[in-house]
């Protein structure tokens, strides 16, 4: 329990420690219970790395010292105000101008407390900014307005907005920004670091990066978000770290490396253009739905979000080949056509659409670099870096009009330009098919 560890830093006996622990729970409302999901997913009080725990520990040290001073000042003020209030028989006060001894005392005592706070603080500063140890997994973090790119040079994997890491192995985040200053903050991992745009290195200089070095102690889903104001949709620049056991991580890497490489897929029944002719109406009012896209293309690929990964499952994995027209998307759907067909059709539409100018999907001809990689997009919990839950209805809304879900986003909609790009001009049937395809990438 982080809070008790923290309290241990404070000088004092076991009793004081226990009292402090109880008080912290009370005062800080953290109420940590080992092994349970925290009530507050972005709490700073339950770090899951030594990096975060060391920060919490110095905080607790400072917290108790300063709280002591605060209580003293408040009680003293109230006592003095009450004790010396004007009464009919109050004597005229003596004109005391000062007291050197007292003043020296209340200069020196805070000075000593400052020293007691400063020593562990400075130690922690240096400890936490050491270089990453040998064998650390380097993840390149690139901030974009308003999404996160994660690159794994060791594995040649690129993903977005959700970072998989192995538990127990040191992680070295090497961070820079593609545009303005962002700040990478996963509270349960530990403190944030600014993600600065790379100033062009002068001759003889190598560019400098900000790093966060940490090791996740336990598997889980740890959400976070950008913490440096970075323009319109700063509030919707969310991401998460999914810490999994080493074998699960390896499985994830393998799946990411394969991506959507061609496999023995069923032959497409109809060419995309001939499938369904939808109208503009209907789909526009698509309510959120729990529709479960088929998994045809992903058949045989086990999701790596194993037991350890505590992340919210956007929806249960459907049985392969399940036939179920999604509700609420109107004429874009013809009854009786399996999800897998839509997904296959979507794959074609996607590959021949403007989408590929910006987006990449590993294993396909889509290699765009401007927007987030969509490899295994169906496994991500959110659309648009936290703009909405990742489900069919939201994904359709997103592709049709992303600005409506996320103000200022650079992605163009079907009928609206965005980020200097013209509208995509995708029809509702195409959007539906693309959404089905993306959700099938799990």
């Amino acid at each position: 329990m982080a809070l008790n560890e923290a309290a241990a830093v404070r000088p004092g006996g076991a009793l004081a420690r226990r009292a402090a622990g109880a008080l912290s729970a009370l005062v800080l409302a953290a109420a940590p219970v080992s092994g349970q999901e925290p009530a507050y997913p972005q709490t700073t009080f339950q770090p899951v790395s030594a990096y975060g725990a060391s920060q919490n520990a110095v905080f607790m040290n400072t917290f108790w010292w300063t709280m002591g001073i605060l209580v003293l000042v408040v009680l003293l003020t109230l006592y003095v105000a009450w004790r010396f209030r004007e009464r009919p028989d109050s004597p005229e006060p003596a004109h005391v101008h000062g007291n050197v001894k007292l003043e020296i005392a209340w200069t020196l005592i805070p000075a000593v407390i400052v020293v007691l706070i400063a020593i562990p603080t400075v130690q922690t500063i240096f400890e936490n900014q050491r270089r990453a140890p040998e064998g650390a997994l380097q993840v390149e973090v690139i901030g974009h307005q308003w999404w996160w790119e994660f690159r794994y040079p060791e594995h040649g994997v690129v993903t977005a907005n959700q970072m998989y890491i192995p538990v127990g192995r040191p992680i070295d985040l090497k961070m820079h920004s593609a545009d303005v200053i962002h700040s990478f903050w996963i509270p349960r991992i530990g403190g944030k670091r600014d993600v600065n745009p790379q100033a062009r290195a002068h001759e003889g200089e190598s560019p400098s990066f900000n790093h966060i070095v940490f090791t996740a102690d336990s598997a889980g889903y740890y959400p976070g978000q950008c913490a440096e104001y970075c323009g319109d949709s700063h509030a919707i620049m969310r991401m998460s770290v999914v810490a999994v056991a080493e074998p699960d991580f390896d499985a994830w890497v393998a799946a990411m490396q394969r991506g959507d490489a061609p496999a023995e897929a069923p032959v497409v029944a109809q060419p995309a253009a001939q499938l369904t002719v939808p109208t503009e109406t209907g789909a526009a009012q698509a309510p959120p739905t729990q529709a479960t896209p088929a998994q045809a293309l992903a058949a045989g690929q086990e999701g790596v979000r194993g037991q350890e990964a505590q992340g919210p499952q956007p929806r249960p994995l459907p049985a392969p080949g399940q036939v179920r027209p999604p509700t609420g998307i109107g004429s874009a759907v013809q009854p009786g056509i399996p999800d897998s067909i839509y997904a296959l059709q979507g794959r074609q539409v996607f590959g021949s659409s403007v989408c590929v100018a910006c987006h990449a999907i590993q294993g396909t001809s889509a290699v765009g670099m401007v927007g987030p990689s969509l490899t295994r997009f169906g496994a991500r919990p959110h659309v648009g870096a936290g703009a909405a839950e990742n489900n069919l209805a939201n994904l359709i809304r997103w592709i049709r009009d992303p600005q409506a879900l996320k103000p200022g986003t650079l992605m163009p909609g079907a009928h609206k330009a965005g980020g200097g790009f013209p509208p995509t001009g995708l029809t509702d049937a195409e959007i539906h098919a693309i959404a089905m395809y993306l959700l099938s990438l799990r």
Partner: protein
Amino acid sequence: MATLEARAPVTQPHPTKKKNVVWDLMTTVDHKKIGLLYGVTALFFMVVGGIEATLIRIQLAKPENDFLSADAYNQIFTMHGTTMVFLVGMPIAVALFNYIVPLQIGARDVAFPRLNALSYWIFLFGALFMNSSFLIGQAPNGGWFGYANLTSEQYSPGMNIDFWALGLQALGAASIMGGVNFITTILNLRAPGMKLMRMPLFTWMALLTSFLIVTALPVFAVALFLITFDRFWGTTFFVTQAGGDPVLWQHLFWMFGHPEVYILILPAFGIVSEIIPVFSRKPLFGYAVMVYSGALIALIGWGVWAHHMFATGMGPIADAFFTVSTMIIAIPTGVKIFNWIATMWGGKIRFTTPMLYAIGMLITFTIGGVSGVMHATSPHDLQQTDTYFVVAHFHYVLIGGLIFAIFASLFYWFPKYTGRLMSDRWGKVNFWLFFIGFNMTFMPQHWIGLLGMPRRVFTYSAELNLTGLNQLSTAGVFVQILGVAVLFGNVLWSLKRGAPSGPNPWGGATLEWATTSPPPEHNFNRIPVVHTREPMWLESAAAEDAARGTPEPHIHLPPSSYWPIFTAFGAVLTFVLFLTNLWWAPLIGLTWTTLGAINWAYEPTH
């Protein structure tokens, strides 16, 4: 020539004909009228900033709220911060400096009366200019510290940031002029016998604040020039693609921005140091230490700026340096708090509204100070920075410190401005409403921040589980609004019906209480001679006789002038015309300003 201007032999204005009030205010160089203009303007902008704050809190009252668009929210939080710092916090302190300092030091006016008027008019026009951006829907939207490179042309192509940079440039110029004026006034125009160590603490803090203003504001001016050059003339100070460095902006901004915090809080310390002794009927405990600790805070305040940048990535050595320097500044601040408590000890405490606010400030400011030390714990500041924990901290310092003190000063000096007392009963109602509402709004924000909510977000996810705390915080705003409404009602009521106060209703110790309420245009009939720190306690007969007795035969006051407002208009016009993007347009404003300056120089002052 500073002192010459103020003391130049001029016509004795005892006007018998009734003046046009508006024209009188437009041309006045009387420090008291300018002080009131500053004060009323600042209170007006306090309402504007308060409305912005209310909109922010309404938006955050529930997750995924669509009350405001992202763009509107970003403009409003930027203007809330900018307004509260530059259009409320600073000018309201300047208002008090203007009105009170010359009276406390026994002077007839400030050293440069026309410059004083120029400061006010540039401030007013600059403030109106910056807020006019709302009319075209392009208010500044880069946050009050406008971090580069978000503010560069590439990422902020609209006029939003232009309004911000140009408007603040004008406001900064006004502040620097004010700073020069007060340093000169305090150093040169003190009454005979008022040595530096006999000055009232408020005047001391005004002096220190003025030194901070004239040293810190120019740094900000430089930063603003750089961003203006980048945006208008294609320089690349903050453009990374061309080798510029946005982190430079952070250093420049905070090198100004941290002293700015002390520019805001030292006047509050001064106010509380006046009020607590008067209502405890005891002299300030440890006067010399209070002066030195104030000076030390101002000085060390220059060496802590990068504690705003622990997440920037400066490396462990810089982090350690700024951690320790920041913690050290807590020591002189703590000394002040203990000395205030010691002043009350053994006193005879009257719980008037100003005293309630002063005691409230002691407590709320200490809460803000304590969370400040938590920020200084830099490894954990990486968790705190840019979250609501920081928002809670600086509102405890700026409302709990500065605004509490300002409200205390309003009740304390209102009789001096008007000759009438404010209602004490309604004052107490207002204090408790404001105190409770303030704590209700900002206390929960400590938790909101440490439980994972960043600041400056127009929306948040319900999954954070912070809806309840946010709602409590929003509810508190409405209690505060009620408190402020009672305060304003009290002011309006007391202006007409407040009980007559006489010259010294509280038994104050300093010279402003020697003269009548409100004071005559020339402040004192004769300049008092001072032998002690508390002239109205220890030598009141002489001080009162000088202030209200037989007047000097020749009292010299500067005549009113319309050149300050004329010149100020030209100066701000220059900035406005930059927005046209025509290279020659600002020259019109510049010509106007020059015309004003020349006429100013040749204006007969007698």
